[in-house]
């Protein structure tokens, strides 16, 4: 999975801090794109593409939390890491509860470097999942969702628009398992639950 090119974003309104992060991550061999505000970031980035973003919670203009809300609303596969100050910890915790990947309290550079690889791995995993998902036909995606919900073939055949026979649902199901590298319904269900941001 390492071969998937991955974009790393930094969003911070403090110029020195932003520059320091760029240098830090560059020194760790990571390519980084930096933005001075949440608005600039949302304008420039394709939220449908996988990647990893380091967001400062407290910023002038759009706060880090507001940017995250936008990403979440757009079902973005971007992995979000927050940088928080001492007093913002409850906010950061709430953000993680709502689906942000992690947070690091300033000024803890060591912890940032510790937690970043996991986030990057997650971003790669999401990119991979997205690619697999893209291989499915629209019909198969529909079937896959219904399978993930635990619907039997007969019911799926009935729910599809336009409806089809249970046998073709069975064919779809086999294709889905093969393409998504899943063994059974349970695995597919877990896979879909792990990637709620799939379009």
């Amino acid at each position, binding site marked *: 999975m390492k071969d998937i090119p991955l974009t790393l974003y930094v969003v911070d309104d403090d110029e020195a801090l932003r520059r320091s992060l760029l*240098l830090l991550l560059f*020194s760790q061999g990571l390519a980084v794109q930096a933005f001075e505000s949440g608005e600039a970031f949302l304008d420039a980035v394709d939220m449908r593409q996988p990647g990893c973003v380091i967001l400062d919670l407290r910023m002038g203009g759009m706060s880090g939390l507001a940017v995250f809300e936008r990403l979440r609303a757009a079902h973005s596969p971007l992995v979000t890491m927050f940088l928080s100050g001492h*007093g913002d910890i409850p906010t950061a915790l709430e953000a993680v509860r709502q689906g942000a990947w992690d947070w690091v309290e300033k*000024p803890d550079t060591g912890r940032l470097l510790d937690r970043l690889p996991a986030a990057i791995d997650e971003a790669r995993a999401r990119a991979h999942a997205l690619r697999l998902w893209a291989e499915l036909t629209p019909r198969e995606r529909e079937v896959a969702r219904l399978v993930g919900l635990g619907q039997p073939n007969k019911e799926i055949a009935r729910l599809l628009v336009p409806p089809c026979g249970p046998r073709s649902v069975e064919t779809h199901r086999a294709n889905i398992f093969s393409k998504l590298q899943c063994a059974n319904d349970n695995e597919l269900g877990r896979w879909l639950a792990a990637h709620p941001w799939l379009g």
Partner: protein
Amino acid sequence: MPSLSTLRHWRRILVAAGALAVIAASGGWAERHEMQTKTEGLRQAAAAHALGLRGLVEKHDYLPHAAARHPDVRDLLRAPRDAALQARVNDYFTDLQATTGAAALFLVDRAGLTLAASNWNTPFSFVGQSYRQRPYFEDAVQGRRGIFYGLGLTTGQSGLFIAEPVRADGAILGVVVVKISLEPLQAAWMRGADPVVLRDSHGIVFLSAVPDWLFHAIRPVSAADLRWVADHRQYGNRARFPVLPWAVETRAGTSALVLHTTVLHTTVQGHRMDLLALDTPLPELGWTLTVTTDMKEVVQARQLALILATLAVALLLLGVQYWRLREKRFVEQRTARIELERRVEERTRDLEEAHAFRKAMEDSLLVGMRARDPEGRIIYVNPALCAMVGYSADELLGRLPPYPYWHPDDLEKQARESDDALRGRAAPHGFESRIRHKDGHDVITMVYTAPLVDAQGVHRGWMSSVVDITAQKQAEARQRDQEVRLQRSARLASVGEMASTLAHELNQPLMALSNFAVAARALAAQGSSEMLAGALDDIVEQSRRASEIVKRVRAFINPQRAQYEVLAVDGVITHAATLLTPELRRDGIALRVDLTDDGARVRGDRVLLEQVLVNLIHNAMHAMHDRPRGHIDLVTRKVEQGVRIFVADEGPGIPPEQMDQIFAPFFTTRPDGLGLGLNICRTIVEAHGGFMTVENHAGGGAAFSFTLPTVP
């Protein structure tokens, strides 16, 4: 295609021709009618005249017949020499003549010699005269009855001669002649108005009502006739008979009566006359009777008819013209009316449009408009004003001051401003007016008043525009309020909050420092010295940034003493308590203030000292957050060193093991606390030359106190 004017021209000609034809026809009709009447009259006159003439002839007709049978007459013819007989016959004739009224009676023998005559004893006695060349003699000698009109050879008097042969035994012995004078007849004719003419078989007039026409011929007399007349000496020695001075015009067409009437144009006694003439032949006498009547009446009738017809046609034309004029005028009037209606309609539409435009404008206005007459009666309001005051237009129109929307608290002011406005003394830049909306809320308005002048330039009242400035006023009030709150929150910004801000601000350069440092280590390991140098520079820079922040905090906590002022301690405490009142109320905690040392004054920074109090009270509130309805005591006591201020709560108190650390930096019992608040408070108190202590009350709860030196 002929033009309209050409058509009209032709029509005029036609109408004129028609009118003329009608006039001519009526003239002709009247003429014919009159002519018919005249002709009828003429016929009757002719008949009457003929009858009279015949009567006259017949009256004496028998005379010669009877006389011829008298024995003496026959005897005398047989014995012409018998004088006695002759005398007897003469007497007999004279007697007969006198009895019958004939002009003369005489007896002629076969040779034409007169044997006896009624006028034997007169100078013009016929006796002895010869009449053998007279036609009546010739006729009678041959056995025929002779009738002849002519001049008497002896007397020169004209008369009608009737001759009868005297027969004896089949032989004609002689002729008895009676002469009848037609003079009385002619005299009677002359008295009549219409000329009557009698002419003989030669066409020669021998009896006429007009003397000038006598012995004139109706046509030139032929030579034979002339000779015959001369031979018979019918009219004496007269040998020439000029043609009558008549212009004859033959008339036809009086169809009902086949009468050959003619029209004569002639001159009678110098007067030109047009006469209608009717010839009646009298064959037994060989004469022709011509009766005439004056055409004047016909002409007059015709003229009258013409005049009447002309008048009638003129009247008709006038009527038609009048009717046409009337029609034209009617059409014009109708056209004018339609035009007027169209213009009125157009004008109405314009007005409606203008009105709709004005209405839309008025309705769209957010500014309230109100017009008043000079007495202050409301004569107009627009929807915006109605919306502003909550009253409908019906409720406002016609109202006099006080208006229903006047604010009850401002009645006097409103009345004064209204009077001013009505006297034209309204403030040119408008005045502010508070009004009461119908639903009870207040509206602040700005009122601008201008004179209302109508199209004639007459001053009709006042027009006011009313602008709702409530929102603006509220915004201003809010801003003022916000400013006050900001001020208050600046003071309220507890030392804790300040410390939190400080921590965040410090975190930025610290994080950057840390990042640069880690990066520097990695870069050093990678041997990229250039980037390493840059990173190290950044580290230096971020360190300075951090120290700047710290300096700012220190400056805040330790202001220059020069800025200190003398403060009443009570004032500082009361103000701090006031600042916290809302929060205390929210938490249900009562603040008991006990200021025992009135008038104590200290020298210091009001804001910082308030911050110390606010921080201590905040801490006390925190300590009591699970004990509602508790009390916080705020007490001042005069002490030896100055004044001591206590803030005591009813919380759990401070555990004895923490007593020593309570003022240490970064010591906190709260999860989100920074542990700087009390430390900073102590720093502030000490900066003011005081000191701070803490103790636990016997009855529970902690009591923080600080002592400040007083100034006289």
